[in-house]
């Protein structure tokens, strides 16, 4: 599954970031690396973007950016 499919409060482990484009590079720079844990904290008023907790900080991603991240629920 991908990161955009998480339910609020769910914690997942990152498997891989797909693609080599600007978005996936930025995601990796922000610390989204395979093996890392990530939690969905909430959604913006129209359901997009999403707020995550990763590496002890809060990160907001759009749905289509979250789609680049393959995860598994722990």
């Amino acid at each position: 599954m991908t990161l955009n499919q998480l339910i609020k409060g769910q914690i997942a482990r990152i498997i891989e970031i797909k693609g080599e484009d600007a978005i996936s590079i930025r995601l990796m720079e922000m610390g989204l690396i395979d093996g890392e844990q990530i939690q969905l904290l909430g959604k913006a008023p129209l359901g997009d973007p999403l707020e995550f907790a990763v590496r002890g900080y809060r990160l907001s991603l759009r749905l289509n950016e979250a789609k680049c991240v393959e995860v598994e629920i722990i």
Partner: protein
Amino acid sequence: MKAALSDLDSMTNSSTVSSQQAVHQQKMTIAIIGNPNTGKSTLFNQLSGGHAHIGNFPGVTVEKKVGSVTWEGRKLDLVDLPGTYSLAPRSIDEMLAVDVLLGRQKGVPRPDAIICIADASNLERNLYLFSQILDLSTPVVLVLNMCDLARSRGIEIDAAELSQRLGQPVVCTEAHHGKGIKELKAAILNIDPGSRHEVQQLFPESFYAERSQLREKLKSQQDESPPDFLIDRLLLDVGGYVESYFEHHTHNGLIEHLHAARTRLKESGCAVPATEARVRYGWSRELLKGVLHQPEVQQETASDKIDRWLTHPAFGFLFFIVLMFFVFQSVFTWAGPIMDQIEAAQTAVGGIVESFIAPGPLRSLLVDGVIAGVGGVLIFLPQIVILYFFIAVLEDSGYMARAAYIMDRLMRSLGLSGKSFIPLMSSYACAVPGIMATRVIENRHERLTTILVAPLMSCSARWPVYTLFIAAFIPNVVYFSLGDLSLISLQGIVLFAMSSIGAVIAVPVAWFLKRVCFKGDVAPFVMELPGYKWPSSRNVIYRVYSRGKSFVVKAGTLIFATSILIWAAGYFPGNHSEQFALQQQIETVDATVEKVEGQLEVAKGETSEQVESLEVQLKNLESTQSLLYERQNLVSSQLIENSYLGKAGHLIEPVVKPLGWDWKIGVGVIASFPAREVIISTLGTIYSLGGDVGEDDEGLIGSIRVATWPDGRKVFNVPVAISIMVFFALCAQCAATLMVMRRETNSWVWPVVSFTYMTTLAYLGALLSYQVGMMLI
């Protein structure tokens, strides 16, 4: 620097020793870099003492902020670089930081040391950038800022051990409270300028082998091989700026070689770009083992608790709307009285000048050119200051990122992102602070799009134009009312339509710019939501002050110059002697009237004879007065008709005729180039009322209602009024906006583009409204 020194040596052979001593006394250049939201600007202000020279780097839209300081007799230049998560440049703007750090940026010597500021409560991620900076081999001081916040979250960092492991100084600070600044200064002064450290090889062997091959390849093509750091970037950044640079500046299969190298790396299990993040984050985690202690289970922070409400799907949105309404309202209402005072002061200063200088070209230049020009600049200042105050508070507290988060989905339907919302909303008050507020948008194309559509938002300067023409030509039909209070009226609907038309047009314009002009640029919305904190008053004051100052100094001088030019065009080449004589006479008569009125007041208690004679005298004077005014207005209107401005108006009459305008309106439009509201006073002058009229002036409303073409037809009717309003809703008649645009984009291209497209839209809009309107009536 070395080359310069050897030149110096060869010129003064005998003084080699003394010139080398001078090296140590030379200015040190210190670059300051860090992740966004780490308190970098607060730290910069603390270090520079609030005195920074603000400018622009050539060719990019990046602000150049340099603070020159002297610490313990040592001169230093502190160069503030934009906040960034990584040194992997994707655009020319991001390349700037790399160029500065490598000493490749003209006008900035290679830094002797780098200050890397990191958020102590989020160290692991902040060390990613730091690890890239270590690759530059320049001495670097790691600043762990917001140590208090980290402690409050139960995070403890052994700074001494960290420094030991890194081989670089590490300083803990709380920049908000000025704590740790002294230690940081000492650490910087302790650095030996020009020293270089060995770069730790974090990547696998195969990577460095490819780098050497690539260097050889580059050497065969260029006289000088680029620094290792750039070769690394070339290899690592797929589709990055360095790659596209070399693609355009080299040949002989370099790019093919690069692709092959990347394939080989992938096969050896070191696939770019993923390798870099894996390697650097692995390094930072390893480095922090035993240095950083944090609680196993992260408890919910105060910031998280606030966020549960402020980013709540329903309540968060409501709070945002209320907050924005409050900001917007404040910009309008708080600025109003101050703006009135500036206007009053302008009139008062004009009055003082008039009382000292007899009517003549000098007085006209001073009062109508200089004072009106300065006033025209200062009038924007209250709105800029108030808006910037709010922006600084919102940004410093961490709310700005939430605002972007909440508005992103809506703004994306316009082809923009959440970060564009506040600049565009601010532009409803005034495009000048709105454009200045686009600095929060890091993506260059998104920022340019926002800057280009910002002047379409209906700013407060358009209201006088709307008010005048609506009052004069739109019938006051009320459709729905509550007692005396009319809630829905035709006038209200027209006013609403006029103030929304720009925003509506902005949608396709933004779409066109994003899809056609700035195609292929995906702006990721990967954004950190920083923890909330109290805004520092020092930071807020400093930012409001520096924005206000840079507006007055930079944009102000140009707006001022434009006002003088328009004044000159309206003044020359006419013979103003009669006008001046009339002015003199009017002033004498005015003074006499005042005197007689005073006498009359005194005489009222005395004999009735005296009162009578005084009243007769007053009556005579008043009729002379009105005759003189009439004559003066006639003379003034003839003068403006024969001025260069008037000639230009006649010249463009064929162009504006399809819009239903006569030459007078044409002149008004040209003369309103410095600011839209100038059209009111210009129309006042042309319709021989003298220059001093307001939008509610009954005289002006009356005279435009009866104005006729030479053949006796009325000039103004509803379609003409609508056509003028639509024109002003869409045009770029605002020198201040164009000047700020030029300042913010560091180029004349964008103001010219903006002026051209907006004037075209305005013309077409006005043409359409007039022609369709005429068909309907």
